[in-house]
């Protein structure tokens, strides 16, 4: 038998490749996970409270209880992801022990470390991390993240921050692609990003790992906007199970994402939907309650 390797970076980014063009849905019960799978989700994110409830109820938001994650794993055949707090490597170790398919070191939960993120190279399980700009994305990749998702502002049903973050990351990539090699070190310094990852962006003309979008997607059109701005898949949190008919809403977003470049198909997917979640105006949220700025 030839040599086999487990937990390599290629396997981690490889799973992210398989998720492209799909919708990852937040679920808080096994029942919701089944609805998400029935609607065509490519993966589910098992968590205790969706971001809009975390926002409403306040308090410290932590990793989900193991029982919940096990129930969700038992209920579906698609990949199951779960969140740990920023810097909380002990929670990440528990999630790895539970055998989740992806760990999200997430700003949606209350950070456990206000200075450092997890060294994700230490784990066999792949990690996804949020980013608001290119430097943040490349620092996470440097730490071992195998997938980036632009953060948006979770639990708001307001797409404006997700759009800003996608455009900011794209602008950063364009800057690097257009720069000569002798300017890359200063660019790395300005972005606070590792030089070797900056070089990979220059050589590949894109982020070296798949780039998905999250935070504030509430309608099929929101998901399509993110896809046309360059996201390769989308995470939908509160948007689905805070709508009036989750199954119908989830199906519509899946269909719209699969044909995001075809307005006729997106129109069809958008017809006859019940009300979307009520959104929040970002400027009305107290500064200290914003989630996107969490991350160092």
């Amino acid at each position, binding site marked *: 038998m030839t040599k086999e390797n487990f937990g390599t970076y290629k396997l981690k980014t490889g799973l992210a490749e398989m998720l*492209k063009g799909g919708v990852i849905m937040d679920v808080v019960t096994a029942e919701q996970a089944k609805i998400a799978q029935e609607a065509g*989700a490519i993966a589910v994110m098992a968590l205790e409270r969706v971001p809009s409830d975390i926002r409403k109820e306040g308090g410290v938001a932590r990793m989900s209880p193991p029982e919940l994650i096990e129930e969700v794993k038992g209920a579906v*055949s*698609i*990949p199951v992801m779960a969140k740990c707090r920023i810097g909380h490597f002990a929670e990440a170790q528990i999630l*790895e022990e539970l055998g989740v*398919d992806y760990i999200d070191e997430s700003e949606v939960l209350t950070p456990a470390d206000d200075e450092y993120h997890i060294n994700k190279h230490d784990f066999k399980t792949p990690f996804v991390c949020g980013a608001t700009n290119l430097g943040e994305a490349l620092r996470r990749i440097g730490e071992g993240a195998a997938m980036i998702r632009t953060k948006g502002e979770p639990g708001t049903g307001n797409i404006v921050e997700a759009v800003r973050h996608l455009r900011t990351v794209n602008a950063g990539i364009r800057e690097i692609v257009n720069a000569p090699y002798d300017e890359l070190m200063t660019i790395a310094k300005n972005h606070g990003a590792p030089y070797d990852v900056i070089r990979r962006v220059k050589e590949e003309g894109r982020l070296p790992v798949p780039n998905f979008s999250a935070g504030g997607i509430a309608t099929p059109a929101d998901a399509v906007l993110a896809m046309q701005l360059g996201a390769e898949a989308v995470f939908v949190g509160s948007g689905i199970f805070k709508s009036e008919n989750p199954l119908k809403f989830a*199906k519509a977003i899946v269909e719209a994402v699969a044909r995001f470049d075809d307005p006729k198909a997106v129109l069809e997917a958008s017809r006859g939907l019940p009300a979307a979640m009520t959104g929040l105006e970002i400027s009305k949220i107290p500064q200290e309650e914003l989630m996107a700025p969490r991350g160092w």
Partner: protein
Amino acid sequence: MTKVIGILALQGAIEVHKKHIEALGAKALYVKREEDLDSIDALILPGGESSTMLKLINVFDMTDAIVKRLKEIPLLGICAGCILLAREVKQPEQFSFNMIDIEVTRNGYGTQQDSHEAQINGYDVTFIRAPIISKIGENVEILASHRDHPVWVKQGNVTVATFHPELNTQAPSPMHTQLFNLI
């Protein structure tokens, strides 16, 4: 005439096939709609989430057109694509196109932690939440095995692999070359 190899482009790892197809001197075409099926000489059903792909084929009303075209041209099913082409699917049971006489067990190795890199016929490949071919019919030829199970098999014009050759940047892969030679 340049041969055109289609990639079913509803969801999954689609673009990574392009370099393998172009390395063979063929043209890659992303098959998103029924009419795209008319302009291809062979079709790759890529890796991704098989249950999502099935739902999209159904919602977009493409089942009849796909079934008709699958019978006419050489096919390569990879991972999720292998599941779609099988005669029967287990764990859980789900609809499949029955284009090759095999039974496939989904996520046969376990979760992502059981995903692994290995070599198939000297070529580096990845098994990512891969299915296992649990039964094969007598007319199915085994092209490669791994851990006592067939992982690359062929029946007539149809080849399937449970692993991913497309993530290897060394192009073309033996599996893409095999498909090309069937045209």
